[in-house]
Each structure stands twice: as C-alpha cells, then as structure tokens.
C-alpha cells in the first residue's frame, strides 16, 4: 500500500464525471452547516448556487481543536476528488489554504474572512466590513437606548471580533458622544469556547443589564443565544449577529426583543464567487464585501428600526460615500 496515494484511483472518475457542471467543495469551520450563524450563511449561498447555477457540491467541516494537518488533508481531499473551486469558511483555514493552493496552482480557492500578504494568486479572499455593519448597529443601539447606556458582548477577544466592537462603539458615539458602552469578552484566544457557551453569554448580559445597559449587541456565535434570552427576559433590546437572529427557530420566543441583527451576508459572497467562476471571470485577490456591496446590513425583521430609519440611512449614506471613516480596532 505504501506506493499508492489515496486519490490515485478516483481522480479520473471525479474530474471527468460531469463535464458540464462545476464541482464546488466547501470546507466549513467548527459547527458546519446548521450552526445557526456564520457557517449556515455560507451554506445558504452554496444552496443558492446549487439551485440557480446547477453546480455540484460537497461539504466537510472542521472538528473542535483539530490539527492543522487535518485542515490541509480536508482541502487536499476535496482537490483530489476533483472539486474546483474550493471554498474555505473561516480565517482558521488561512494557512492550510495557502499551502494547498501553492501545491495545486490549477485549482481556485476562496477563503472567507481572511487575507494574507503571502497567499498565491489562485486564492481569493472574501472579506467583510464588519465594522461598517456594526457601526449601524451602534447607531441603532444608541438611538434606541433610553438610559444612554448600551453593551457589547464579544465571544472571543480576537482581531475579528474587535472590528465589531470598534464599529459599534464608533456608531454609538456618533449618535451620543457621552453614551456609556459596556464591553465584555467571554473568553480570550486561544480559548474559543466563548463562541459556544450560551450560559456565559447569559451571565455577561445580565451583568451589563444590572449595570444599567438597555441595548446589548452580542457578537458571540451561539453564546449570543444566552445573551438574547437574558436581555429579552428583562424586556430590553438585543442585537444579534451574522444571521438574522429573529428568524432563528431557536430564538423565536424572544423575537419581540430582537431589535435587529448585524447580518454578514456570507451567502452573497459565496454565491457571487461561484457565479463569477462559472461565468469564466473568477474573482481574484481580496474581494471585500462592504456595506455598499451589501456584504453587511441590518436585518429589518420585526420592523423595530422604522422610527430611526432616517438616522440609519444617513449613516449608511455617510459610510458608502466615504465621508465616515470607521476604525477597525477599538479606541481603548
């Protein structure tokens, strides 16, 4: 067995089976399809591409705390099974994508949420201006807060989540420079359990509520479920993240208290990427999906933003026109 590679016998069958159709391989981060959040959004884009573009797809997901080599192996397996393009969901794949892409220059790769100076040209980065959407969330929060006291809960104090915090604070301050913003991070890297522990989210939210905050934005994966519950049970406003939390079955009970969600339209990015590839002019380099490109937006479910819509529109206008510059790291 030593000589043969695992892929020796199925490369032919894989690549040639559907000459007409594109085969898209998708590697999710932990949680995968059905995580009610980020990965799910990517999955929606993939489903859309399958329906509308008729592409073939296969999916695999990361395991908690797995080795770097497992990610590489996953990507390699997708490549050698004939999938092209291969989409990696989440910045944890950066190193693996770079490595596998260098070994397979003929295959196109996309990585979501990450970009690096050293990645080869067959890698496309699909990134989002989280700070812009969060800025709008900050505007909404500050406008809705009666106590002039709001809160931010980050799942893990990573660079990515700090962008959310930075935008949110800037947005809130733009409405009311004196507003008080509580900040809590549930864990710090390398402990990523903060994205995964609703109990922690609940406690953190309760702490902020007890201190007087009345609108709380949580960018904390499924820990956010806990904070939304805590906020709703006190009758205050919650702001969700990634997917529209008000439409999540798991949170339907608290719908009335979900002010909005800062939606990151990963599905749009994924769909656009696949479509461009199929159309023969693939996206390259770093493709940033910002507010203007509808990469990020505020969800409207429930219509709670109606009364402050003018303010949000104005802020949107200022951002898309470039008039407002939003920091990507929190001020303090």
């Amino acid at each position, binding site marked *: *067995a*030593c*000589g*043969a*590679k*695992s*892929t*020796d016998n199925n490369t032919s069958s894989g690549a040639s089976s559907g000459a007409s159709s594109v085969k898209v391989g998708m590697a999710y981060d932990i949680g995968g399809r059905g995580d009610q959040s980020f990965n799910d959004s990517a999955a929606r884009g993939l489903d859309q591409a399958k329906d509308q573009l008729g592409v073939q797809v*296969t*999916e*695999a*997901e990361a*395991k*908690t*705390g*797995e*080795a*770097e*080599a*497992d*990610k590489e*192996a*996953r990507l*390699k*397996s*997708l490549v050698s*099974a004939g999938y092209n393009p291969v989409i990696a969901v989440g*910045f*944890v794949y*950066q*190193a693996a994508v770079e490595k596998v892409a260098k070994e397979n220059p003929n295959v196109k790769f996309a990585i979501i*949420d*990450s*970009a*690096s*100076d*050293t990645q080869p040209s067959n890698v496309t980065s699909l*990134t989002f201006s989280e700070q812009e959407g969060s800025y709008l969330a900050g505007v909404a929060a500050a406008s809705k807060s009666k106590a002039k006291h709001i809160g931010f809960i980050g799942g893990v*104090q*990573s*660079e*990515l989540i700090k962008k959310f915090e930075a935008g949110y604070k800037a947005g809130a301050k733009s409405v009311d420079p004196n507003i008080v913003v509580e900040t809590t991070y549930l864990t*710090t*890297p*390398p*402990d*990523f359990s903060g994205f995964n522990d609703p109990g922690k989210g609940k406690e953190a939210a309760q702490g902020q509520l007890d201190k007087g905050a009345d609108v709380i934005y949580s960018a904390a994966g499924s820990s956010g479920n806990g904070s939304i519950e805590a906020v709703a049970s006190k009758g205050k406003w919650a702001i969700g993240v990634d997917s529209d939390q008000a439409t999540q079955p798991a949170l339907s009970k608290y719908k009335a208290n979900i002010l909005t969600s800062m939606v990151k339209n990963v599905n749009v990015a994924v769909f656009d990427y696949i479509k461009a590839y199929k159309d023969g002019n693939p996206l390259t380099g770093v493709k940033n999906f910002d507010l203007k490109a509808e990469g990020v937006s505020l969800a409207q479910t429930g219509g709670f933003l109606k009364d402050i819509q003018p303010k949000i529109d104005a802020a949107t206008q200022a951002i898309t026109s470039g008039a407002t510059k939003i920091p990507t790291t929190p001020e303090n």
Partner: protein
Amino acid sequence: MTSPNPPAKRSFASRFDGEKILLALAAPVLAVLLSVVLCSVLLAVSGKDPFDAFDVMIRYGTASDGQVLTLNRTTVYYIAGCAAAFGFRMNLFNIGVEGQYRLGVLFAAYVGSQVDLPAVIQVPLLLVTAMLVGGLWASVAGVLKVYRGVSEVISTIMLNAIATAVVGLLLIPGRFAPAKSANANAIQTAPVSESSHFFSIETAGGTLWGFIFVAILIGVLFQFTLTRTRFGFDLRATGRSETAAKASGVNVKRMVLTSMAVSGAIAGLIGIPELLQSSFYFGQSIQLNLGFIGISVALLGRNSPIGIAFSALLFAFLDVSGTQLPLQGDYPQEIVLVMQGTIVICVVVAYELVRRYGLKRQQQKVGAELAAQAAAAAANKEVAA
C-alpha cells in the same frame, strides 16, 4: 491513585511461553475487534453502512498520503503519551500536559522568530526552550504538591486554564505576536527563522517529519532511564510503593519535583514537530486536547514506551482516517471518538482479565513448586533418619 506499573517481567523462559504471548496479544486484539463491533452496531442503527465506513478509513489509512499523515500524527501523540506516562510511572497524574505543551511551543515559536542562529544551534535552542518552559510550568504543580500538599490533579487542571490565559496575554499583538499581523484576522507569532526548520523526508505520500526520530529517541531514552538507571529504579519504586521507596532511601519529594519537571519538559516538545516542520508559527489554530489524547495514549499503552508507540499509532490512524468519513459517504467523524473510547475501555478490561488469569497461574505454579520442594525435603529427611 492509579496502578501505573505493568506487572513485573516474567522469567526468560516464561516470557517466551507460547500461552503467555497468545494471552498478551489476545487482549488488545479482542478489544479492538469488540470496539469495531460496537461501532458497527452504532453505525448500522443510525442507518449507515459500517463496512463502507471502515473501508473508507482503511483505504485512506493504507494509502501513502494517509500513511505519512498518520506517522506525522503518531510522532506528536507519541511524545504526548510519553509526557503523561512519565508522570504515571511515578503515580503522578499530570493532567497539565495540555498547558505545558501550549506554553512550551509558544515560547519556542517566539524565540524562533526572534533569534536566527545556525541550524545546529538554533534547533537545539528551540527544543531546550520548549522543554524548559514546559518543565517549569509543570514544576509549579510539583512545588505545590511537595510543599503545600496540593493534589497535582487539581493544580494541573487549574494550571491548564491559567496557561490558556498566559498564552492569551502573550499573544496580544505587540508582545509575542507582531503588532501588525500578515494575516488580518488571526493572531499569531511571526514565523520562525529558516534555520529553525527541522529536516524532513519527502516521500510519495508527502512530507514525513524528521521529528519522528526525536520521538524515537525520547522513547529509547525513556525506556533506558526507566530500566537501566538508578534514577529509573527509584522512579519505578516510588510508583509501585511510595512508602517502600521512602524507606529505601528515595527522596520522594525530590522525586516528585524531578518527575513532574521531566514530564512537563517532554510535554513542552509536543508542539515542536508542528512548529518546526509544518506551520512555522504559533497561532490560534493550535491543536487542542493533545494533553488529554496523551493521557489516553499512555494509559492504553500501559505507560511503556513500546506500548505507547502502538497506541499512538492506533489513535493517529483513527484520527487521520476519520477526517475522510464526512467527505466520502457523509459519515459523522465523531464515530472516531466512540471507537477510541470503546478501545480504551475494552482494552483495559481485557488486560485486567488476562492479568488476573496470569496471576492465578503464577500463584498456582509457585504453590506447586513449593509443595514439590517440601515433599522432596521430607523425603530426604526420612532417608536421613
């Protein structure tokens, strides 16, 4: 708390006793089979085809790329297993391998990114750094145990969490990680210098890590220390009976400190192959749970360097080939955890049953031989009278 030392070696003749070999092999083989059966049932009940699933795993595990991955992973698991086993051999339950490993590799990555010496100095420097940091972190638990009577079980659990905090603290950009990272969303140290790279072997199946030789060296040293040195004798004696060791003149306190530190030093090396052979930086995507895998591997390998090699290989094979399950047939790869769990439990039960049987046989033999001696003595006496 544990009975970490395998039963004594048998005599030369009995070591090659066919029945014994059969028994010794029967235990693990039966256990693996039993676990395969249990997992098959689980797969079948959930509407999956178990044969196909195992086929996927075996096909990948026997392909050259799968083999290389498995061997690389075995290297890591083996070192982790040795780290845990060293403590176990002295009845120390070092749950803290996890934290020691993370701190060790973080510091090695940092030093490697800051210093650029010729490879012959650089590589040993990084190894020593990792061992030193891992050893020192483990020593905290050792010191607390010896001087404050804190059970190493709790202190290492706490130290694992604290190690995570320390890593977080040091990884704040501008400290061990560069202020501006090349990779926008990830926090990680700068890559280690070129001279830090460890040699590797290119094969048809990919890159085989040269660190496997270091792992083998660790195993050889471990075995040699344990069976051939005075220190090793003291260590085993303490593991078998602390009271007897103390009465025999072993300085148990110093022994606890030393073995905790050595266990931690080995733990410090766990992340090195990944660092110096593959990723070249320390970041958030570091493999978690290696400490716990090490404990399982050590216990499965009965804390002996040879046994650990087999159990590390088995665990690595399962983990590596398990990644193929969702890709080829939509099998949840969690089935691998189930297999590992059942194997650990089945193997120890099987070993215990075999051990009991063996002990009984030995006692019977001793009894029979003594009776024969006594009879002979009586006969002699009568002749004399």
